[in-house]
């Protein structure tokens, strides 16, 4: 079998086919996303990647020993292989001082290579194809049906369900039960292993449990998406969720939801584009992650650019108003002064906006600040001069060193901070240059 699965697909792919395929994919993704949430938070993504690769020899040996793909023997083999990986990595670190990532790299690539060789050499005895090991056979899952009829009672007819779906559901159930059962302990350990250990929690056992659960989830994902993409299903949903929400239960829940949606979308996209379902699921997950990076409220790329722009605008606005105010002060308190010249495109835009909204009144080449404009300007100048006074008092700086920092920081001082600074000064005290400090005006910017 090769990558040309798409071309093989049947003509009469109906709702049942799509439904079962998506259901299987969703179940697999959900299990991986749930486990992956803990892996990501505990900075164990690399170990997750390692286990995803290294379970292959375990599975291969188990199948050679007579296990069925999806059966309990294979699960055991996978867990054993996963734990061997972790143990070997730690042992290498202890014995030869090999850094954890280098050790993991050595161990899991070797084990994976071993698995591929076993699978290739024993192709006759094993129902695994090396290429399918790499990217799964989700497309064929819907054809491998088992009957649930006998389980549900003899009166019910044969209920045909894909075996892969059964495996995936069983694994999902197992993973959920394990993690929910130890939820509090796992969360505590995830956020602060040192404190957990100090509090007497069996951190090592919990970690082994987590890694074992990873191996189990990996096995289910194996059939659907193959070894390499399991890592995408483990890590990407959780990393995406982390960018959007911040409490662990929410992260896990969101990760699972995203994973399931991505699985369905990925399947649909693969069908539509006639390509590998596993690949498209990974691409969709990547798309979600990219969207989160860009659009996350507050920290997303877009949000940060907006904040940056917002600050630049505010700074330009306040500088412009303060400039007019200072010009007025120098002219002895005149109400109208010559319109200053904008020094940049941004200043020009700001000046235009201020005039348009009436904060600054333009009349025949002269400008005057409206009442709100005066208040805003005075606040800025007040901040500036208060900071200069503070620096002058506490920082033993020469006079000419005071203006540049104040120029910068005047935009960041809020009302409460200004009050604190003023409280340190004498009543009616001037700034270090001898200029009067404008009083606090009623309106807070």
């Amino acid at each position, binding site marked *: 079998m090769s990558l040309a699965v798409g071309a093989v697909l049947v003509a009469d792919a109906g709702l049942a086919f799509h439904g079962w395929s998506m259901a299987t994919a969703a179940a697999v993704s959900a299990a991986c996303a749930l486990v992956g949430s803990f892996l990501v938070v505990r900075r164990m993504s690399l170990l997750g990647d390692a286990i995803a690769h290294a379970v292959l020899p375990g599975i291969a040996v188990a199948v050679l020993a007579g296990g069925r793909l999806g059966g309990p023997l294979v699960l055991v083999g996978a867990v054993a292989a996963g734990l061997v990986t972790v143990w070997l990595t730690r042992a290498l670190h202890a014995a030869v*001082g090999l850094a954890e990532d280098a050790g993991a790299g050595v161990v899991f690539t070797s084990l994976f290579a071993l698995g591929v060789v076993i699978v290739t050499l024993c192709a006759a005895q094993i129902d695994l194809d090396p290429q399918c090991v790499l990217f799964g056979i989700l497309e064929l899952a819907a054809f491998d049906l088992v009957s649930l009829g006998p389980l549900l009672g003899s009166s019910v007819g044969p209920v045909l369900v894909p075996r892969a779906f059964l495996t995936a559901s069983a694994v999902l159930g197992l993973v959920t039960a394990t993690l929910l059962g130890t939820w509090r302990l796992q969360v505590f350990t995830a956020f602060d292993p040192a404190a957990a250990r100090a509090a007497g929690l069996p951190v090592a056992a919990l970690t082994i449990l987590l890694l074992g659960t990873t191996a189990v989830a990996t096995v289910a994902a194996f059939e659907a998406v193959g070894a390499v993409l399991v890592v995408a299903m483990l890590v990407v949903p959780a990393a995406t969720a982390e960018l959007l929400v911040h409490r662990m239960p929410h992260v896990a829940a969101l990760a699972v939801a995203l994973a399931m949606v991505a699985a369905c979308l990925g399947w649909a996209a693969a069908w539509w584009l006639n390509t590998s379902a596993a690949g498209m699921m990974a691409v969709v997950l990547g798309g979600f992650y990219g969207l989160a990076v860009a659009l996350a409220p507050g920290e997303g790329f877009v949000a940060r650019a907006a*904040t*940056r722009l*917002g*600050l630049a605008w505010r700074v330009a606005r306040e500088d412009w108003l303060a400039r007019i105010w200072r010009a007025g002060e120098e002219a002895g308190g005149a109400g109208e002064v010559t319109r200053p010249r904008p020094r940049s495109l941004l200043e020009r835009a700001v000046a235009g906006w201020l005039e348009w909204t009436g904060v600054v009144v333009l009349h025949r080449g002269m400008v005057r600040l409206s009442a709100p404009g005066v208040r805003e300007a005075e606040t800025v100048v007040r901040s500036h001069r208060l900071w200069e006074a503070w*620096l002058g008092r*506490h*920082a*033993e*700086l*020469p006079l000419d*060193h005071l203006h*540049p*920092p104040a120029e*910068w*920081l005047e*935009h*960041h*001082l*809020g*009302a*409460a*901070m200004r009050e*604190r*600074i003023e409280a340190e000064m004498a009543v009616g005290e001037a700034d270090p240059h001898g200029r009067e400090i404008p009083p606090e005006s009623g309106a807070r910017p």
Partner: protein
Amino acid sequence: MTAAAAPILEFHDVTVAYGRRPVLWNIDLAIAEPCLFGVIGPNGAGKSTLLKAALGLVPVVGGYVRYFGAPLAGVRGRVGYVPQRETVDWDFPVSVMDVVLMGTYGRLGWLRRPGRRERELARRCLDRVGLGDLAERQIGRLSGGQQQRVFLARALAQEADLYLFDEPLAGVDVRSQEHIFQVLAAIRDEGKLVVVVHHDLRTAAEWFDRVALIDMRLVATGPTADVLTPDNLRRTYAGRVELLEELGRAVAERGRTP
């Protein structure tokens, strides 16, 4: 005729930020004469940051730093630097001699290999710090004091006119500390400025000619005895440092303080 010579090292109204968050405010400091100069202050006060900013390792957002009147770019060859010890992987497969030779790379420039002149220089520097016998030893096999002395030798190999040391005595036993201080004093006696970030007030009082007391900003500077008075040390900065921290946060978040 009597134009004042530029100070050896000058911080002019320097504000330093990590990310966008200012951690050092308006440092104004000029050192005109070669001496053993200590930079001291509480933990987290920004002492190491000051050094890193001087070397361009951390961005300076206000003011400037000048060496002999010029910006760093033109005079890098004249400035020697010894970073904190923790940054290094001691299992790295290099010998003591290899590390000291690294001090000569700056002068060699791209692609040229160290030759006989560099090796002899390295040997002399090793002898000066008392590590002459250990040239071929892998660096992981040294004691803490010996490791620090390797870095000292590397700095000496830079043949600089001014040296910046970041906590050279952290985690070093008393005997080695004394030895290291003697080497530093010898460098000063050659007419070079030695600036040392140091954590211990007691030894600072003994060894440094001049100090600067840093706590997010310059509190005091001058001859050691004048600066390390109980008054200066007892002055409560808590309120002022808090204010600076709040302001720093506001700047980092591009907003205003409350």
